[in-house]
């Protein structure tokens, strides 16, 4: 059984100075911007990866980039680690704090600063939720494309930290493909801007470096994102198959035929039952696996693409094909899919994996996932972005049973190794965080990791930003 994931040992000098640090930070954040009472710190001890919990030293809730800068400058000078946090929806523990760290929460910076429809960009504060951008520009016929399932709650700052994806990223790309510029505060308090409001900027593409850096290079406080015009029409269609194998093979053939729908989502029987119980979206309950394939465009375009997909699905013995008949029905189909993880809470606790594999290996990895879980006496539900091979096995367990919790974690590690062995990777969109940190060696050589860490070192020589995450604790350069 695997060992629990270790955090860095807390810095004794920081812990012993707790009172002074709190008093100093309190002065930098008037207006109730510092949470430090013991009771009030407890709700910040974890994010959506509840398997691990650590109390922070304090929680800073700044309102401006200047306040973020003042906090980081102070922490840098006093050697205090900082853990950035958006809405705390990370599934890999990206925002889990540690006893010597200040959580830097961006939740009070949630303004949409500027919408420029003519140039199709929006400038927002980092604490804005992903969905609220689309809600703001929606009435004008635009949207922000990356749509993590937690888009209702998760923030743009967190999306940038994890380079988040989502169902519709098959066609529109992930966060990095839709991010144009950021205002970022470095660990020493310096405020920099990267990129701008256009697709490419002069000089190094540091924006690409920052996107997905898991809060280790700096704290993004503002972002300029692309907004896109909505398609003329969009229609999710349900394809039911007898087995996961057939559904997986169908996905590979659709993509192999050069067809790129907006989204191809996969649910196995367990996931269909869970989602239907919550959303009552009309998912077929008699099938073994379901694909939600969304096509968009003009009526003729949708018809043509759908016909091509149906032809392929028939070759794989599709049992049911059902088009959504109304906007309400379409919304329910997506609501069910996007609530899948939370809805799983109705039947069990879970940990959610995030491996990505080549499409030809989907069936194999699904089968291995099932074998690994049942071998350990665990149930598993699969619901994921099949179009880009981004798998999310949900390993079900009882969090009040420590032995079963350990088994679930072990199963997760095994599954991710299978993904890497199949030519895939550890994380498609959730990030490494604390969860996959010690598995990084299965993916990268020491030389690969050294180079990544050298970049990290260039931004934060004191290794203060989100320090326990991403890189295995052994083999790090001396700070």
């Amino acid at each position: 059984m695997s060992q629990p994931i270790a955090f860095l040992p807390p810095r004794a000098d920081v812990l012993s100075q707790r009172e002074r640090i709190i008093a100093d930070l309190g002065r930098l954040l008037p207006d109730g911007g510092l949470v430090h009472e013991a009771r009030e710190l407890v709700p910040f001890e974890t994010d959506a990866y509840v398997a691990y919990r650590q109390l922070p030293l304090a929680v800073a809730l700044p309102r401006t980039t200047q306040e973020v800068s003042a906090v980081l400058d102070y922490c840098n000078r006093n050697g205090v680690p900082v853990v950035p946090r958006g809405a705390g929806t990370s599934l890999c523990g990206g925002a889990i704090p540690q006893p010597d760290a200040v959580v830097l929460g961006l939740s009070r910076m949630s303004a949409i600063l500027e919408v420029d429809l003519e140039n199709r960009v929006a400038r927002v504060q980092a604490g804005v939720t992903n969905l609220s951008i689309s809600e703001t520009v929606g009435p004008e016929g635009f949207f922000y494309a990356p749509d993590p399932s937690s888009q209702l709650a998760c923030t743009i700052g967190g999306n940038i930290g994890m380079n988040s994806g989502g169902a519709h990223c098959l066609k529109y790309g992930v966060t990095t493909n839709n991010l144009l510029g950021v205002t970022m505060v470095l660990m020493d308090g310096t405020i920099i801007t990267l990129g701008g409001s256009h697709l490419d900027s002069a000089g190094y593409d540091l924006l690409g470096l920052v996107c997905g850096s898991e809060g280790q290079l700096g704290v993004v406080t503002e972002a300029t994102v692309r907004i896109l015009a909505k398609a003329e029409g969009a229609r999710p269609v349900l394809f039911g198959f007898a087995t996961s194998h057939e559904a997986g093979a169908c996905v590979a053939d659709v993509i192999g035929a050069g067809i790129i729908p907006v989204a191809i989502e996969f649910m196995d029987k367990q996931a269909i039952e869970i989602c239907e119980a919550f959303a009552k979206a009309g998912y077929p309950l008699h099938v073994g696996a379901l694909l939600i394939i969304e096509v968009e465009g003009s009526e003729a375009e949708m018809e043509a693409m759908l016909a091509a997909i149906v032809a392929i699905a028939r070759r794989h013995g599709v049992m049911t094909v059902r088009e959504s008949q109304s906007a309400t029905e379409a919304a329910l189909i997506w609501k069910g899919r996007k609530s899948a993880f939370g809805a799983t809470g109705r039947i069990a606790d879970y940990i959610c994996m995030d491996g990505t594999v080549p499409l030809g290996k989907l069936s194999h990895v699904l089968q291995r996932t099932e074998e690994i879980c049942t071998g350990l006496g665990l149930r598993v539900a699969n619901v994921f972005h099949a179009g880009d091979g981004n798998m999310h096995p949900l390993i079900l367990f009882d969090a009040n049973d420590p032995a079963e919790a350990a088994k679930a974690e072990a199963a997760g590690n095994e599954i991710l190794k299978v993904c890497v062995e199949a030519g895939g990777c550890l994380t498609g969109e959730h990030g490494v965080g604390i969860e996959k940190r010690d598995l990084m060696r299965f993916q990268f050589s020491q030389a690969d990791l050294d180079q990544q860490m050298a970049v990290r070192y260039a931004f934060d020589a004191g290794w203060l930003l989100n320090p326990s995450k991403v890189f295995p604790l052994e083999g790090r350069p001396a700070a």
Partner: protein
Amino acid sequence: MQTSFTPAQLSDPHVAESEKILRRCVHCGFCTATCPTYVTLGNELDSPRGRIYLIKDMLENDRPADREVVTHIDRCLSCLACTTTCPSGVDYMHLIDHARVHIEQTYRRPLADRLIRSLLAAVLPYPARFRAALALARVARPLAPLLRRAAPLAPLAAMLDLAPRHAAKRPERAVPPDSALTRGRVILLEGCAQPTLDPGINAATVRLLTRFGVAIATPKGEGCCGALVHHMGREQQALAFARRNIDVWMREIDAGGIDAILITASGCGTTIKDYGHMLRLDPLYAEKAAKISALAQDITEYLATLHLEALPKRDLVVAYHSACSLQHGQKITALPKLLLKTAGFTVRDPAEGHLCCGSAGTYNILQPDISATLRRRKVKNIEATKPDVIAAGNIGCLTQIASATAIPIVHTVELLDWAYGGPKPLKLNS
């Protein structure tokens, strides 16, 4: 989510229930996004997930409530937007109810807070006292700015601001003889605060129901439903109200022929529909309470069963404000709008309809700042739809929104009564 309770702790049925609720939460954070206080304050501690965590920590450690926990629990509106959002089905309502009772039993509030809460609990549920208090408020209104300057007294200022400027007129209630009313027979909750603030609502309900052949029983001795004190954690007082109503209604029901208990204030409706749960541990009342809850219906639910005829379109735009107790508490969302549309009104949905208006029982008195922020946001969204009139199904919302807009606001049932042959609501005449 993992919990750690001892078997001894779990032998308390209230703790056992809360433990079950906590186990459902997977800490996904979806609830934060639709929580009015999180949206306003931007602090996890003022979100459902944060409160769930605070409650969990307090109960697991058998701790009396303390100032920090009370601060954040008090800020909860009990709007239950989180339960609409929650994919895991966390029963937040009963968890926060339990926490409020725990606070009331284990925490001593500062003096001013204690006095104001006692005053509210002693006045609002009793129509005669409430009428007298409103009369007093009309005289004392000039004191509001003074009270607002002393923070602990701000709730008193909020009370004065909310009190209607003129005493409500009691309309005539001509009820035809029962013999003409054969379509059904219902109990109509008279209520406490609503008839004092706006007697026109139940009068319109009576006219509308009798016009369609429904007889209305008026059992003597009924009182406040208990919601106001229930949300203050005063459980014994709330249960006493509930038992009293159950006794009164059961007599009527046992006499025969009651199809439903109708409620025109959805805040009350949510509580009466929960009587079965509130009294589940009372061997004398559990069964009766469950029966009452099963009979309880919002007025719009019952009207929908009458299949009222579609009327020609009329030139009036209605902004429908969905009271939290209706949309989140009772999951009634489309029905009131459908009734209004069928009656010929043009109905518009204001943006951010899921967000509370800040009324929330006594919340606008006890948390005047957050309440006022939410009211501004709500009124802005409503006014953006450019309505001729606003309709809602809960007296708290009607009073709250009326205090911040010039657009007339009426109960949904007043518009329906008007459309189906009743008088035009008085507020539309001015």
